[in-house]
């Protein structure tokens, strides 16, 4: 129904959002900015999921990544950096090897992708897959589904135990443990 150029435009919009967010995450000097840029990445990838007519996946992506993971990351950031350091710059190390790896890996991967999969063409919009996913989760994939639920319970307990317990202060004389007032 939607003609080709518009579809392409939508795709590039979503992909651009995701990649711009990714770049910002990777290059931002302010760590809070990079956390908020993660929102753009997640939203862009959700848009790409919707483009793949995986609408359930898109919604789950928004719900869990944006509503859960991102909020957790932001909480962790705000708990571990102090308000007076609002403009904390994001410390980096080894920028040169990082840049080399970035350029090499992205060039290699993109070359391989385009060479291998560049020929496939667009498919018409697919049927909604939500019901199919639900059926499969409770029939073919019921074992992983249950295992995941056990894992979630373990994670819940583990996270509470780790975060709630008090560690002993590292022994004096050790390198770390820089006490700040």
């Amino acid at each position, binding site marked *: *129904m939607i003609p080709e150029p518009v579809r392409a435009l939508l795709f590039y919009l979503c992909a651009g959002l995701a990649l711009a967010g990714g770049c910002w995450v990777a290059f931002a000097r302010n760590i809070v*900015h990079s956390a908020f840029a993660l929102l753009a990445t997640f939203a862009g990838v959700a848009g790409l999921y919707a483009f793949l007519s995986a609408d*359930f996946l898109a919604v789950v992506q928004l719900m869990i990544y*944006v509503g859960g993971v991102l*909020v957790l990351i932001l909480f962790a950031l705000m708990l571990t950096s102090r308000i007076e350091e609002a403009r904390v710059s994001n410390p980096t190390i080894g920028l040169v090897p990082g840049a080399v790896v970035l350029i090499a890996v992205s060039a290699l991967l993109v070359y391989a992708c385009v060479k291998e999969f560049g020929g496939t063409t667009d498919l018409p919009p697919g049927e909604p897959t939500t019901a199919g996913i639900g059926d499969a989760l409770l029939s073919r994939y019921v074992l992983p589904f249950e295992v995941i639920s056990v894992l979630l319970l373990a994670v819940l307990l583990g996270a509470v135990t780790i975060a709630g317990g008090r560690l002993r202060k590292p022994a004096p004389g050790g390198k770390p443990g820089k006490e700040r007032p």
Partner: protein
Amino acid sequence: MNIIQHVANLLIRSVFHADPASWPWTWLVQAVVIGIAAFLAFAFVAIFAGPVSWIERRIAGRIQSRIGPNRVGPQGVLQWLADGVKCWLKEDLVPAAADRPLFLAAPYLVFTGMFGAFVVLPFGAQVVAADLNVGILYLLAITSLVVVGLLMAGWGSNSKWALFGGVRSAAQLVSYEVPSAFSLLCVVLLAGTLSTQGIVAAQGGWPWDWFIFRNPFMFAAFFLYFTAAIAEGNRTPFDLPEAESEIVAGYNIEYSGMRFLFFLFAEWANIWIMAAISAFAFLGGWQIPGIAPEQIAATKGWEFVGWQALSWTIFLVKATFLVFVVIQIRWTLPRLRVDQLMITCWKYLVPLSMLMVLGVLVLLALVPEGGGADTILRGAMVGLGLAVVLVSALRVRRTFRVDREHYREMEGRDLWYPPYRLP
């Protein structure tokens, strides 16, 4: 076929004299129609959020034995316009040490989260912007944008009060999303679909066809959802993020002018959205008693329009009634403490809502729909609902009468103030 395609096809046929199925520009016309629909929804939010603020202030005044705004326009109905213009004309301040991009972007993110919910709200029999097949999940997902927006505002303001407010608000939203999702899960179980229109279609026009009166667990789930929704909307008694006695005004303290207005706007719109979700998920939505949706779809011309308007009106009346309840709760209950807030969620609402899901599942397996037991259950629940309404009306009457006697003794005048003066 939803109303947007309907209108677009009509336009193509009548204006361009083309066949919508084969015409190459169908998508363009549809995009324009969608744009117009989005604008109408925006205007609806704007026009609704304003008067809701005025209604709330009048009701608040009356409950507190005050008068409330009654100067701008007859009975003050234009107060919201005056306030809006005032806010608009104010200076848009950015604190010197604020994180400028985050500070500037936050109100729009919050507003996007609120406004996005309107996409799937079923206003009428065919009136919905997009009948997504993951509608309910979409509603839950789009709300998470609000969380990020609030955190952004809290951090960007570079003020500890704003930061506290933002973090509190985010913690509250994330926590209360769990019971509200579980309560909506009960609805999804009964309806067998995630689509909002599908949920409405699975109910009926008469009260005994509504999901709230389907069985006792749904009855409880409605109240659980309503409580959780109030908390998600940061309304009293859960308005910890804006607790003015502790953190001056919460995440929006550093904002002024138009950006502050956006926050307020989102809050008022959110009241309406949660009332609308409760109305369509539990109270039958736009269903007209005595006429099936298929019959409406089969009508043509003005009759079709008439039925649409009626269904729309029914939905709006239900949602507005719930808005009124939310407002009254605000002026009834005191604010909770932070620990009480979290206890309410995790120790009471979450286990209870899980219990409701379990109960609905069991009843779904045991009581076949349309059977004798089902009928008895529905009848009993409708009776319970009527009893609640009746008892509360009698209690209101008794409270009023007792105080009326005292007032007459003390002042020598009648306490009665006709409610038609309300607005």
